[in-house]
């Protein structure tokens, strides 16, 4: 899977939970889910669960703690995919 494909899938997953639509339109690798997209911590859990289903991977507590930005999330997902 290319990084672009991964990014596109991630964007589709987070979209329903985003409160700041402008933040979503301007989404970059540095975008922070809580600060920039105003996703709450409970919905961040839903994002992680949806990521697990979409990519067929399991995210542990360490992964969850890291996945606060788009960049970090892509890294965690790529690591888990590589370890499959």
């Amino acid at each position, binding site marked *: 899977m290319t990084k672009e494909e991964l990014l596109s899938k991630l964007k589709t997953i987070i979209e329903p939970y985003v409160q700041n639509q402008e933040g979503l339109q301007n989404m970059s690798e540095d975008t922070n889910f809580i600060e920039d997209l105003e996703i*709450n911590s409970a919905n961040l859990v839903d994002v992680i669960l949806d990521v697990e289903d979409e990519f067929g991977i399991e995210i542990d507590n360490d992964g969850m703690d890291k996945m606060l930005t788009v960049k970090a999330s892509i890294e965690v997902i790529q690591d888990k995919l590589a370890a499959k």
Partner: protein
Amino acid sequence: MTKEQIIEKLPYETPFLFVDEIIEVDEDGIKGSYTLKPDEYFYQGHFKDHPITPGVILTEIMAQIGLVCLGIFTLKEQIDKNTIGVAMSSTTINFYKSVLPGEKVLVKSEKEYFRFNKLKCKVEMFNEEQKLIAKGEIAGMIV
């Protein structure tokens, strides 16, 4: 952990403690009950001369039994009474029957998932005639 210990560890106090008894509990779900006292504070204003239990209070009863008690049971020893914090994060409840002062309600909750400190459950409330009062989904975070 006994059913009584679960109630002792609840972070609520009168007039906002809405759990009398835990009837059954395991990792996947919980059943409990609460009897609305005829002099609960909210009957003074909901409604004028016509006391009916507010939907937000029914939701709170469902959350305290269905989510918080189940969460305490699930986390068991990790929970210290002085530090447990809970925050409701979402609710979708439909209401089917009203609840009058003095009525006893039974709450049944079934765990959907508990991941990363978020507990989400399907919760139902019944009256003593086993008629459905309310039904829906509630989620919360242990913080």
